[in-house]
């Protein structure tokens, strides 16, 4: 069993045909974790007891538990709360936080009897594009351990790419699923805003956050997506998709019009990425689709607008971490103000503080209209750009990330360079649109991602197109775990924070 290549679709067939047990399947991943986790560091918390116990239970009760996902091992990004298993957001401020409930999306897959392997690393509070902002440790890209896996769902992406999980859940606020999926050579999808409940997803930017799948194929992506979508009465912004998610089968793109936004290609795309992108566009035509230029004229304002709106929402969302009820509290506070200041001063990392300050400033009296108000107007313009474009085309294609995986440490001191990583992914979040990234080849031995964006609720169209392209691309490379040098700096590591977790979470 090759953990690097096995897909959920095959794994499910093996389980159903009785060729492998759920326990044996789980063991495939536990063994791979034993082999490579010390190099990749994709997880902040492994739950091997849970994995073993629950997969055995699935085997024992196979009749009762023969759901479509039963026994398929999954990794969960550590910003989705899991009752009984600490959930940290890769932050010191939540290093000891034990949730009292389980996120709706996680509950849905648990109810379908997937087997949880553990919680994956991320940029602290999902703020970052490299998973270097984790308070615990950085995650390494299995294609080249000296490069980043992308972020903020870098742990989930690296775990899937490295064969440490069959598939994973991540969250995407400005590209946090698609960009790491691209950099790790896997499939990642951000659904339409509202398609997946955010209840239990620790909020970064509420109007942008969406949970989505990270998988090894487009089919797997659709399969997992099927089981996490739906209206949730605990999330007022959640909606029922107008049609159910279908498992993709398309092989051709006949009649599909794909728009290529010129503004995205102007945004400093690396030549190697551009080459893979152009080849993939050519494949679209070969498959019977048509490619046309489209214009999304407000693209250049999307990034600045995002870096007002997301920090503004974050500044309020992260205010609850005050040391009063749970999580980290500073030692011996003199009074309430001292407790707030030191708890938050000591508990948050530099990028989180930077964004809280930006957001607080942008919402301040006298600045609101100039910053937050204007950013919201830009958001409307970005949305209008897409609406206009989708009058002429069915889907929009672009590179997912302007570059392949970059060296660890190369952008940590240059926030703007780091923010540019998401230039092609952020507009879809601002407009609430679904988008997928699929691998479209290698550049200098590192994966390149191809992004398809569709109108709201066009998940099935996107998945069908991505499925046809995936087959045509025929990407079959796997990571090598090579290390081309340059170690990443060590993060803050609380005692016992990255240990194996004894709780029996799922039963």
């Amino acid at each position, binding site marked *: 069993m090759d953990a690097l290549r096995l897909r959920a679709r095959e794994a499910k067939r093996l389980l159903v045909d009785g060729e492998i047990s759920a326990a044996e399947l789980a063991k495939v991943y536990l063994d791979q974790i034993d082999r490579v986790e010390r190099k990749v560091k994709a997880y902040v918390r492994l739950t091997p007891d849970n994995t073993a116990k629950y997969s055995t239970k699935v085997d024992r009760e196979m009749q009762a538990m023969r759901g479509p996902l039963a026994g398929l091992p999954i990794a969960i990004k550590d*910003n*989705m*709360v899991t009752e009984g298993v600490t*959930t940290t*957001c890769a932050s010191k401020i*939540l290093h000891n*936080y034990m*949730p*009292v*409930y389980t*996120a709706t999306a996680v509950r849905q897959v648990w109810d379908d009897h997937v087997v949880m392997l553990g919680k994956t690393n991320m940029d602290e509070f999902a703020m970052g594009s490299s998973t270097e902002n984790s308070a615990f440790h950085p995650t390494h890209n299995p294609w080249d351990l000296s490069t980043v896996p992308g972020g903020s769902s870098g742990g989930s992406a690296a775990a899937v790419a490295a064969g440490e999980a069959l598939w994973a859940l991540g969250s995407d606020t400005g590209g946090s699923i698609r960009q790491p999926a691209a950099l790790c050579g896997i499939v990642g999808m951000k659904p339409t805003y509202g398609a997946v409940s*955010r*209840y*239990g*997803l*620790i*909020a970064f*930017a*509420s*109007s942008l956050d969406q949970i989505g799948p990270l998988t090894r194929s487009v089919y797997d992506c659709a399969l997992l997506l099927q089981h996490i979508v739906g209206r949730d*009465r*605990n*999330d*007022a*912004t959640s909606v029922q998709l107008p049609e159910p998610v279908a498992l993709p089968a398309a092989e051709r793109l006949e009649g599909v019009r794909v728009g290529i936004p010129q503004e995205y290609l102007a945004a400093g795309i690396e030549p190697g990425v551009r080459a893979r992108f152009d080849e993939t566009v050519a494949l679209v035509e070969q498959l019977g689709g048509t490619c046309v230029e489209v214009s999304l004229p407000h693209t250049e304002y999307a990034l600045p607008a995002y870096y007002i709106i997301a920090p*503004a*929402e974050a*500044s*309020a969302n992260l*205010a*609850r*971490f*005050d040391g*009063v*009820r*749970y999580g980290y509290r500073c030692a011996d506070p003199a*009074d*309430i103000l001292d407790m*707030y200041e030191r708890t938050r001063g000591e508990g948050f990392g530099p990028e989180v503080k930077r964004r809280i300050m930006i957001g*607080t400033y942008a*919402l*301040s*009296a006298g600045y*609101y209209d100039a910053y*937050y108000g204007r950013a919201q107007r830009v958001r409307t313009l970005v949305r209008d750009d897409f609406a206009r474009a989708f009058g002429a085309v069915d889907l929009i294609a672009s590179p997912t990330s302007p570059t392949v995986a970059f060296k660890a440490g190369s952008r940590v001191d240059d926030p703007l360079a780091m923010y540019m990583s998401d230039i092609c992914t952020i507009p879809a979040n601002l407009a609430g649109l679904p988008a997928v990234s699929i691998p479209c080849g290698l550049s200098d031995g590192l994966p390149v991602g191809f992004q398809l964006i569709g109108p709201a609720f066009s998940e099935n169209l996107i998945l069908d197109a991505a499925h046809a392209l995936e087959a045509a691309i025929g990407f079959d490379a796997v990571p090598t775990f090579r290390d081309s040098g340059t170690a990443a700096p060590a993060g803050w590591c609380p005692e016992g924070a990255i240990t194996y977790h004894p709780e029996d979470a799922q039963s």
Partner: protein
Amino acid sequence: MTEHWEPVIGLEMHVELDTRTKMFCGCEVTKGDEPNLHTCPVCLAHPGALPVVNQRAIEYAARIALALDCTVRPRSIFHRKNYFYPDLPKAYQISQYDQPLATDGSFEYWAGGEQLRCRINRVHMEEDAAKLVHAGGETGRIAGSDYSMVDFNRGGTPLIEIVTEPDIPSPEAAREFLQQLRNLVVELGVSECNMEEGQVRWDANVSVRPVGSAELGTRTELKNMNSFRYLQQALDAEIPRQVAILEAGDTIAQETLHFDPDTGTTTPLRSKEEAHDYRYFPEPDLVPVLVEQAWVDELRATQPELPAARVERFIEQYGLSRADALVLGSSRGLAEYYETVVGLGVGAKPAANWVMGEYLAHLNAAGLEAGHGHVTAERLAKLVKLVSAGTVSTSAAKEVFAVMVAERAEPEDVVEQRGLGQISDTAALAAAVAQVVADSPAQVEQYRAGKQQVLGYLVGQVMKTTGGRANPQLVNELLRRALDR
């Protein structure tokens, strides 16, 4: 206050609604339970938890808005109001800001025998904070305490805020306004407005200006009062303070004040410079509240009778004076009591006299709400009927009422046990009349000579001999019969 100045008062009233569950989660709204019993990830602001709007709270708020003649807006949104305090677990309060549920209403109320009108700026929804208990220290406040405890049972209780325009002309009018507004809210059945439990709280904004001026002066804000009396006292203290400052040629500082009922003075809580920047922005976790006209129409059609309408009805239906109708009709408790008494066959006028007289005096003396006194409407009706039937005299009936209060007794039992019944037995009275006639030859002579007024004296004598229990009409009749013979 000199007569050159007039105050301008605007009020804000916060009311906790009596919904079954909290504003944004399914936890029960309760009073007096064990601390932190009614909590969940949402109202404790655990990571990842999201608010969901309580529809019943919107209905209640809309009912208040309609009763205040506000426009219920087809679309309103929630905002986050950001500040750090341990009673606010999210460190922001979900509230409404520039797009509230309802705007532009008015409320007519009576003060000093005059009907006044106050414009209502807005009615909006928000959530209440948790309750803090500070241990140790001397002030009972967070500063200087040894440690503090938070009870989240109250946290997240639906709260509505009613904001007036600065239309209120005096502290007395402010008190009347709030009392009548509270009655209105109670009437709607959306909140008990229990003041001891802090279910209703007020802020007052006050400024003064030269009489006749159209401009508003600089205002100060009196925060978080929950007694009508203190509110009036606070305004009575604050207005002369402002006048004195202005007359000395100084300017009023815009600040938030605290009223100390013990000293009767106002002291600054924080100045405008120290005012919070709440950094309001639209709550991204909630969708806009969309209100359909059909729903508003349905609410309007099912509104209970409101105090102002009931006062008019009392005048019309029972022939009461406006003053009496205002006393009896302004609050639901007393109105229901009165109408129960009338409904049991008591005349509207005597019922009004008894309810406003003895019954209200009893409530005031005992500090009870109407309907919670010691004399039920049924018993009062029986008593008034005993009076009308001549079984008990009016003066004896007051005595009976006092016993009914003290012993929670039926009026007939009191009358019987205490021998307070009126003597209407002709045979029994005939003897007393004969005795008085025999004992008063001079007066009898005068009467027979045509001096009719003497009859009053003779009646009095009979009453005297019967201990006041004789039926005066009957005595009158018997005396005439004896004398005219």
